[in-house]
């Protein structure tokens, strides 16, 4: 008879990794299942020159139609789209970016780490749209305080209500002249700026920051290559009692048992597992008495390189470190006090300079182009917009029973469209960024407001959302299922709305908070 674990954790990325870190170290016996292999960095990677790759760095045509981040160097790391199919309506593509390996997407994340504020948690109070989270900044702040040092976040505290200060290492690095000029242009319009805020270290993944300590406790059993198909329910109690998984390589099926189930397989995979976990009691998917499971999918929209400019004084190799290089971040500044725009909510920018602008922006070719490229070496300055996409019921996922993955598990059909609000915001961001660059004395060579397709920002959120009302949400304020009290969903699927901030720091804080709640409830005998 197989062991019954205290806690089954599904997924080993930010969400699952943090749950294991809290629960195993506190003495709970944990089993962690992850669909992907355990990576040995030394064996898995070799240094190669680009010309020795079969496609000279272009990548195999058609291999990753939806993962623009994949390069020929790291193509083998991303989830194979043929083994892991999904679909969307042809007119509304969704770019689902996945890594199936122990550590999940934290093996590759960009590490930008910002706190959410009550402009997000209580967004409805500000503008009347959507729903508030059932928790507020005060609930999560103590957990942010603890997570930031764990992942070694560095940045600057500016005392901005929309971008709360962190318990972080302070970045004292000086700004280059071009960055100072941009900051001065922002200041004239009361637009705040700050340094980027990022996790530091060679690798900032759950595989080096969370899982080692959890394993060291002796209480975590880590099983890679275990593709979870469904969470099982005890028909007598209606409580979750384990899961069924398929071995990735042999395709053999297994059952495991646990007293508590923590789901952290990433936003859409967690939702998919719940939708696929049907029983007589939960015919529409596990924990779906509200009927909202799968709904309110959103992300952050990106306008990559919304403006690309040239710093004229840097032309002809005169850039150098003092003038060019470095960058920063513009926190959300629209609609904070009043809603005085044609759109709700707002956007942020990442900005930076010192690169050579792409030749595709220049209406030249041949020697003329090469000459101009030489002139433009290191002169580029650009901004990328990250905007809040509104959570809407009409953006949702559902199961496609007849399209199955390599392991026979029904796949997702994803519907997410940007609406007028996102389009208006993207346009405003382009116009304002162009004006700021011009004010700073830069020469704008390209500007556009074309958002990347939904999903491409890799910040997909919602679908298993929290809420105070069990009739319109799946989880309560502790990431706990309203319907099944020993089931917790601790990843980005639980978000009610997402602001403009990259979500992982919040996922880590939510997972830590939920895991400590599980410990507390177990101590009280409530779980």
């Amino acid at each position: 008879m197989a062991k019954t674990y205290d806690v089954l954790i599904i997924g080993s990325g930010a969400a699952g990794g943090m749950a294991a870190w809290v629960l195993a170290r506190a003495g709970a016996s944990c089993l962690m299942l992850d669909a992907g292999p355990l990576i040995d960095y030394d064996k898995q990677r070799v240094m190669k020159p680009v010309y020795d790759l079969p496609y000279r760095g272009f990548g195999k045509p058609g291999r990753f139609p939806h993962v623009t981040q994949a390069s020929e160097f790291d193509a083998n790391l991303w989830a194979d789209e043929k083994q892991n199919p999904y679909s969307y309506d042809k007119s509304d593509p969704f770019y689902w970016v996945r890594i199936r390996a122990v550590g999940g997407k934290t093996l590759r994340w960009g590490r930008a780490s910002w706190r959410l504020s009550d402009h997000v948690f209580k967004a409805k109070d500000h503008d009347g749209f959507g729903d508030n989270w059932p928790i507020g900044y005060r609930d999560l702040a103590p957990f942010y305080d603890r997570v930031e040092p764990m992942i070694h976040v560095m940045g600057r505290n500016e005392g901005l209500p929309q971008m709360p200060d962190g318990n972080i290492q302070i970045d004292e690095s000086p700004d280059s002249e071009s960055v100072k000029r941009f900051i001065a242009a922002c200041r004239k319009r009361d637009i705040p700026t700050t340094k980027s805020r990022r996790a530091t270290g060679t690798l900032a993944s759950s595989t080096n920051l969370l899982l080692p300590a959890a394993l060291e406790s002796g209480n975590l059993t880590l099983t890679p290559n275990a593709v979870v198909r469904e969470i099982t329910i005890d028909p007598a109690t209606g409580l979750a009692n384990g899961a069924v998984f398929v071995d990735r390589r042999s395709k053999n099926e297994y059952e495991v048992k646990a007293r508590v189930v923590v789901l952290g397989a990433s936003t859409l995979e967690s939702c998919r597992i719940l939708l696929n976990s049907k029983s007589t009691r939960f015919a529409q998917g596990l924990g779906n008495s509200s009927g909202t499971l799968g709904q309110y999918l959103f992300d952050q929209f990106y306008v990559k390189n919304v403006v690309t400019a040239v710093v004229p004084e840097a032309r002809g190799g005169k850039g150098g470190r003092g003038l060019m290089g470095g960058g920063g971040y513009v926190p959300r500044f629209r609609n904070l006090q009043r809603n005085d725009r044609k759109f709700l909510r707002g956007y942020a920018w990442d900005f930076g300079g010192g690169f050579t602008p792409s030749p595709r922006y220049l209406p030249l070719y041949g020697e003329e182009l090469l000459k101009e490229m030489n002139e433009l070496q290191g002169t580029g300055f650009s901004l990328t917009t990250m905007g809040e996409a509104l959570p809407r019921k009409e953006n949702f996922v559902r199961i496609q029973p007849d399209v199955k993955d390599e392991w026979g598990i029904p796949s997702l059909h994803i519907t997410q469209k940007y609406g007028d609000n996102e389009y208006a915001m993207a346009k405003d961001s382009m116009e304002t960024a162009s004006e700021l660059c011009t004010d700073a004395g830069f020469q704008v060579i390209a500007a556009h407001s074309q958002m990347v397709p939904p999903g491409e920002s890799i910040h997909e959120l919602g679908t298993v959302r929290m809420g105070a009302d069990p009739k319109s949400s799946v989880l309560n304020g502790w990431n706990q299922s309203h319907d099944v009290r020993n089931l917790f969903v601790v990843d980005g699927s639980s978000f009610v709305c997402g602001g403009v901030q990259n979500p992982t720091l919040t996922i880590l804080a939510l997972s830590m908070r939920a895991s400590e709640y599980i410990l507390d409830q177990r101590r009280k005998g409530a779980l």
Partner: protein
Amino acid sequence: MKRRRLLQSIAALPALPAAAQTAPAPAPEFPKLAETAADAVGQPRGRLFGRDQMAALEKLADLLMPKAGDRPGAVEAGAPAFLDFLIGESNAARRKLYQDGLDRLNSESARLYSKPFRDASATEAKAILAPLAAKWTYAPPADPFARFLKEVKDDLMQATINSRVYAAAVSRRSRSAAGMGAYWLPLD
């Protein structure tokens, strides 16, 4: 890869013969043998483009990404032959864009100058390549020929910069190995 081996492989030089080494070390039981990649020893055979299309692409390569000083251009980098392979592997829409685009270069040249694009002078070619002088827009141009020209410009540049001969030229100049990256082997 060690720097010496890297430079050897860039230049496609054979490994030093054992006799040239001063004190030959005993051969390890599991030796790492020096290897040379296919494109350093062979000429790729044509795949997709017909003779006239290839001739137009070669000419285009020379016009768009010419040799500059000791930096090889697209022709020296074998970019046209590489694109013949890459586009041959691509989907039908991309193959068509390229093939129609190359045909159009020839038909425009025939219409304007009564000769194939290959034989057009740089000034004559400029009129045909006029869409490349258009201002950048995010959305690709609606006209497929203009779209082809934008794409082939990017592709020829990247295929050149990512080539073995280009890396060799850059390494000679700056003593740094160009285009190295951590390659992920297939996950088991």
